[in-house]
């Protein structure tokens, strides 16, 4: 017996079943459970999603600025970078190639991120209010390393894409895509560790800082 068959038959034996003893009905019942996607009990959520998202971003040590429309993003970003004395040069996802970065005094190129980039600009698939979380799908135009390798990650988040919880994020994904991409990442604030004396340090391997620019009302 190969390893697969042996392990599976040991599992069946441990659960008091012989191979093939499961009726088709029983199997279908389990498969239905996989398909029904029912949610377990959720905590009370007596908050307004956008406001809560902002508060939770800050609690997770991200920073937030707000603009009325996409055109306002370059200036908001320039203000943030100047305020924090950060370099005004970096890369962005292709969907933001058309923004007037130079008009705001920034040098931003739409290209894959490089090892020495200090600034990476991305959009999001959606954002989850519950914990100030950004949800990313990997893909041709949405490379994950843009939000991972640079020291500063800036995420452009349309207010219309804020949902309440992870379960809502999964539902949105099922509605808009046929299948999962290679990787789905949920990001809540800058990279961190407390592995030395339980002392929190930001910027373990990923970004030192995450700045969220909320777009729209």
């Amino acid at each position, binding site marked *: 017996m190969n*390893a697969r068959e042996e*392990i*599976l038959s*040991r*599992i069946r*034996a*441990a*659960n008091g*079943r012989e191979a093939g003893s*499961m009726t088709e009905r029983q199997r279908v019942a*389990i498969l239905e*459970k*996989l*398909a029904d*996607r*029912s*949610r*377990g*009990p*959720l*905590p*009370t959520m007596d908050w307004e999603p956008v406001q809560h998202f902002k508060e939770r971003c800050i*609690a*997770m040590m991200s920073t937030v600025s707000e603009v009325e429309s996409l055109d306002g993003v370059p200036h908001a970003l320039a203000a943030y970078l100047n305020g924090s004395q950060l370099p005004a040069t970096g890369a962005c996802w292709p969907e933001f190639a058309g923004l007037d970065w130079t008009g705001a005094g920034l040098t931003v190129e739409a290209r*894959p991120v490089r*090892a020495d980039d200090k600034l990476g600009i991305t959009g999001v698939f959606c954002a989850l209010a*519950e*914990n100030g*979380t950004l949800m990313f799908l*990997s*893909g041709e135009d949405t*490379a*994950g*390393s843009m939000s*991972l390798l640079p020291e500063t990650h800036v995420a452009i988040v349309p207010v219309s894409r804020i949902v309440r919880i992870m*379960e809502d994020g*999964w539902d949105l994904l099922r509605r808009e895509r046929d299948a*999962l*991409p*290679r*990787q*789905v*990442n*949920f990001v*809540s*604030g*800058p*990279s*961190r*560790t407390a*592995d*030395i*004396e*339980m002392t929190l*340090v930001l*910027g*373990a*391997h*990923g*970004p030192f800082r995450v700045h969220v620019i909320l777009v729209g009302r």
Partner: protein
Amino acid sequence: MQVSSNLFKQNARAQLANERVQKALRNAKGKLVVARARSILELDNFEEIRDAAARIRDFALQHMDVLLEEWEKRAEAAGTIVHWARTPQEVNELVLEIARKHGVRKIIKSKSMLGEETNLNHALEDAGLDVRETDLGEYIIQQFGETPSHIIAPAVHKSKDDIADLFATKHKRPRLNDITALTHEAREILRPHFLDADMGISGANFLVAETGSTMIVTNEGNGRMTTTLPRVHVAITGIEKVVPTLEDTALLLRLLTRSATGQSISNYLSFTTGPKRPRDTEGPTEFHVIIVDAGRTKVLASEIREALRCIRCGACMNHCPVYQNIGGHAYGWVYPGPIGSILTPAYVGIENAIDLPNASTLCNQCGVVCPVKIPLPDLMRKLREQQVNKKLRPWSERAGLRLWTWAATRPLAYAMLARMAARMGKWLGGRHGLLRRLPGSGSEWTSGRDLPAPQGKTFRDLYARQKRSAR
């Protein structure tokens, strides 16, 4: 990992005498216990969610075969190459085979406790491969040539000064004296390895049957890099990690990170489903997952199967008064604390970890905090029973219990012996009525305090006298 669980008493004594370890444990205990208590308050129906989590895990255990088959079908449809391993040796052989096939020289690793079980790093190093742990705690431990002392905070027993000395020697740079600077130095040292490694190895917190995904929870970002940057990826994971749906995973995650570190959510939750897609610009070209038994089916078939609900948060150890005093290394294998006292005997043999199920006062702190409601004290009690039934307890304990049984089942003899003991106790207690020193293992108890001596009369004597005078 080498098993030294039968040296528990010796190891525990050494850890108790180690001032550095004691200081680190005191520091960690306060922080983790308070952080968890605070963060679960965010969930107004914490107990309801906890009940649901236990049900999800039980469903997964009960239908593990079907869920794994479904997981495999969907993972393979997404291009994942699935392997199955019965033993730790088979895991290491499979990883080595994949490494050889791809001409791998350098490997970066994200945290995997299963990798510790199989001694994977040693197997890879023996084959001449360059293996780098990248979780900061694991990296520190690897540089020290030690093993983790905690499943979430592997280097919790090391002080800043220990690590400053280590980094100065290993990195050949000026000695740093600041935790932030030390963390960032490790970042600088490890970054180039992320970029030029040939293979990444990670574990999995969950296997999602609905989608064929593996998912990992990290804070540092090393898990994302490990699963994205090298050209080959291997995830190794136990069969018990399977859960039915994405919704179930979302629910379990609400409890996992809060129970582990007191965080409402970890920084990075990554769900990986197969290798790089045709149009993707990044990701490994081959994505392997090794599904591992290594003792788990044996536990599933046993009276301690609830232990397989475990989602590896570490809350049981953080809250255990025994762990809080002796730390993780005393337990002598991969998993310390209450869950380790159950899994270690189950995975490495009950005769190789005699003391562990007894290294507990059964106070049930662990059972109270466990997010999936594993009845940890009950399981330890069952293992103690097995030890007795298999005659694995020391002869002195067995003889003592036989003697006790003999007396306790003979009321007259029992009363007589008790009366004798009470009188002798009073006589030994002397003027102050205190026993300063007890014989045998009782001497450990009296080394720190005196035992109030019996007053000379047994309960039966007093009861009989009261009854007489009341008449």
